[in-house]
């Protein structure tokens, strides 16, 4: 067990956890950020995507103790226009993949405000949607500014 100090959505947090605990587990179970989902827990699906210093990474295969940058979770993107765009495009079915989709999409539109379909498909390929909502997700990202 040892101390972990993290910055999540602009605020500092500390926890006491065993080395080896994933960032996803720590966020959900110790800090209460349950918007981050765990589905495959092995790096395949993207449900657990968070940003570290603005870059999308997989929190299920990131060790909590090894994070040095600032974390942004879906809770930190509450007011992002993408949220409304996902609602408008009806880009959610069961919704389990949606937090990860939005976290990835937010990094995409920050770097490329008007992405082409091909850019969207390339940068969103790591977020699997079991319900197959891909066309709506693409539409939401294309219309993210309303």
């Amino acid at each position, binding site marked *: 067990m040892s101390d972990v100090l993290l910055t999540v959505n602009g605020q500092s947090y500390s926890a006491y956890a065993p080395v080896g605990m994933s960032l996803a587990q720590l966020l959900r179970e110790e800090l209460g950020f349950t918007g981050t989902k765990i589905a495959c827990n*092995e790096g395949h699906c993207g449900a657990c*995507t968070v940003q570290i210093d603005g870059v*999308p990474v997989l929190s299920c295969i990131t060790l909590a103790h090894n994070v040095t940058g600032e974390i942004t979770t879906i809770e930190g993107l509450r007011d992002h226009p993408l949220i409304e765009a996902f609602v408008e495009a009806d880009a959610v079915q069961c919704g389990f993949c949606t937090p990860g989709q939005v976290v990835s999409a937010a990094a995409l539109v920050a770097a490329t405000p008007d992405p082409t379909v091909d850019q969207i498909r390339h940068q969103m390929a*790591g977020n699997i949607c079991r319900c197959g909502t891909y066309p709506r997700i693409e539409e939401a990202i294309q219309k993210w500014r309303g």
Partner: protein
Amino acid sequence: MELVRATSLEQVDGGIAIHGGTEVVPLLRDGILQTEKLVDIRGVIPRGVAGNRIGAGTTLAELEVDPQVPDALREACRLAASPQLRNMGSIGGNLLQSTRCWYWRLKYPCHLHGGDRCHAREGEHREHAIFANDYCASAHPSDVAAALLALGTRVHTTQRELALEDLYRLPTVEERELVTLAPGELILELELPPVDASVYLKAMDRKRWAFPQVGVAAARVGGETRIALAGVAPVPWLLDGVDGLDAATPLPRTAWKVEVARALVRRAVTSVAAK
């Protein structure tokens, strides 16, 4: 378990090195890797591209958009894994990734785990090797290694400089390890020769975000065309000329890979000749 954040190379002493952790973390969780000490090496491994030298800590995401990098390597990075994994994964760690053989990942007591047989040879092996598959039929999963091999890359470590092909060895009863690094030896940089033209082509079971079924890299380097393959042997495979596939020894359910490889080799060689 403890985690040490190394700030100098001397501090990397025992334990398991972790860079992006995309391989280390799942393998630790599954109990395939075991250690009391993890050493975060991000602070001591060079990162970034300077001319023909690539820091081993450079991520695949950084490489896929870097104009200094030859086409084959850029494309291999672009087609590897998923965006999040490319953001996390370093090129050094990519070269050292373990096999995706499902028996090995599920801890079957196979040859590569020190057991007495290769479960894949007798069992499910449609994703497995077509070369050097006698002892272990696993197929090396690195797109990046195939590209670097075709490009004639040299590897600089904390102890020596070697050709990329010498980083790998085929596993045997006596020595199951696939890489030749000594304990504690770290990859620091990769050095590329001047490259005239290069290309990487990848067959996968869907269009994005999949391991290579077969990956083919071809490069024109100093008047010579080098061809290297991913997904065809336990290690990245340097092909002995365009007819090299005649020497393949496929298993009953990997014969299809020979045909795919032939087609990709033909296209890759034509493409670098025209560039």
